[in-house]
């Protein structure tokens, strides 16, 4: 594995924990993870793989764009076959921030359908709002846990079942995002409650593990 922050390449693995059921016979979800921190990349990679995802981890927005083939009009370097189903990116990164990467992805006709999730150690509402307005699917406050990954995986699963590009757009368009109603919601989508993030309001997270501490939800309202 490249330790100096290059692309970490993982082929499909038969993952131990979650056996593929009949409905999951389609290819595994392929997640592109972007984070400049080596420690965080290692953790997110493991979290994703244990959740039966293929993972490509890169250390910058630039590399993410290169991987997608969006960088500087370069034609695809053979990576087009490896369709990315979800992008999860850190917000604070040197060079291109996660927000800028999000914008680039959403501006691309080829890739704008890919759900993008932002991670940040900073729980700043204006930041969250900005990302959601720009089309981010969700916003995860670090440190990332298994329950977070299980939740975001649902975004892609739904897309698969719905038939993707032809299916109903569950992602919020760039309309005004109403934060005035009740507690600030992290979600951009108003659909199923199972995708409710750990907000102050009592969530019904089906995959809540024993480690999904309620204090984490309380943390969402207070700044560090």
């Amino acid at each position, binding site marked *: 594995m490249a330790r100096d922050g290059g692309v970490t390449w993982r082929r499909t693995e038969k993952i*131990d*924990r979650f056996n593929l059921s009949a409905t999951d016979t389609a290819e595994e979800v392929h997640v592109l993870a972007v984070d400049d*921190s*080596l*420690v*965080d990349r*290692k*953790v997110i990679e*493991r*979290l994703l793989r*244990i959740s039966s995802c293929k993972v490509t981890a890169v250390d910058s927005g630039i590399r993410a764009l290169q991987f997608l083939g969006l960088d500087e009009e370069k034609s695809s370097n053979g990576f087009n076959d490896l369709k990315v189903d979800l992008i999860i990116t850190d917000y*604070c990164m*040197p060079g291109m921030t996660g927000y800028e990467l999000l914008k680039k992805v959403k501006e691309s006709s080829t890739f704008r359908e890919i759900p993008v999730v932002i991670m940040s*150690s900073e729980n700043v509402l204006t930041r969250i709002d900005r990302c959601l307005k720009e089309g981010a699917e969700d916003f995860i406050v*670090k*440190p*990332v*846990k*298994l329950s977070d990954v299980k939740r975001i995986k649902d975004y892609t699963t739904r897309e698969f079942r719905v038939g993707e590009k032809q299916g109903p757009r569950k992602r919020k368009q760039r309309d005004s995002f109403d934060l005035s109603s009740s507690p600030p919601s992290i979600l951009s989508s108003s659909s199923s409650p199972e995708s409710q993030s750990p907000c102050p309001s009592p969530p019904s997270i089906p995959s809540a593990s*024993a*480690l999904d*501490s309620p204090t984490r939800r309380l943390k969402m309202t207070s700044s*560090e």
Partner: protein
Amino acid sequence: MEVGQMQRRLVDYTKTLFMEGFLDAQFLQLQQLQDENNPDFVVEVVSLFFDDSEKLLNNLSMALDQPNVDFKKVDAHVHQLKGSSSSIGAQRVKNACIAFRNFCEEQNIDATLRCLQQVKHEYYLVKNKLETLLRLEQQIVAAGGSIPMIDMGF
């Protein structure tokens, strides 16, 4: 020492680390990600954390040693350290970083130097304790035992 004893010693030791605030729930999360197919996951992540932290602490020392301290740069390093310590559950290091960042904002040279000492102190403490913990785990595995899962009730 037989395996049962070693396991009990590990459990007690780990619980102490939690009670004393050295580690938080995120560390437990990492342990949950380790299994027979990835038996060294925690050791690997913790090693990365050690390497990363030492590099950052060096950078911080240098940055604060300049005639004209660039507090933005200092803050960036502390932010990184805060992030990685948070990701592995090194709670006291993380908290020391939070305090550090506040003083960076104030551009207070004396306070930030003290913060650096504090962060270094916390880092070396947790490093020591993690090494001890991981060594205990290693001994258990070498003796044919399994690493007990700790329930802290988080």
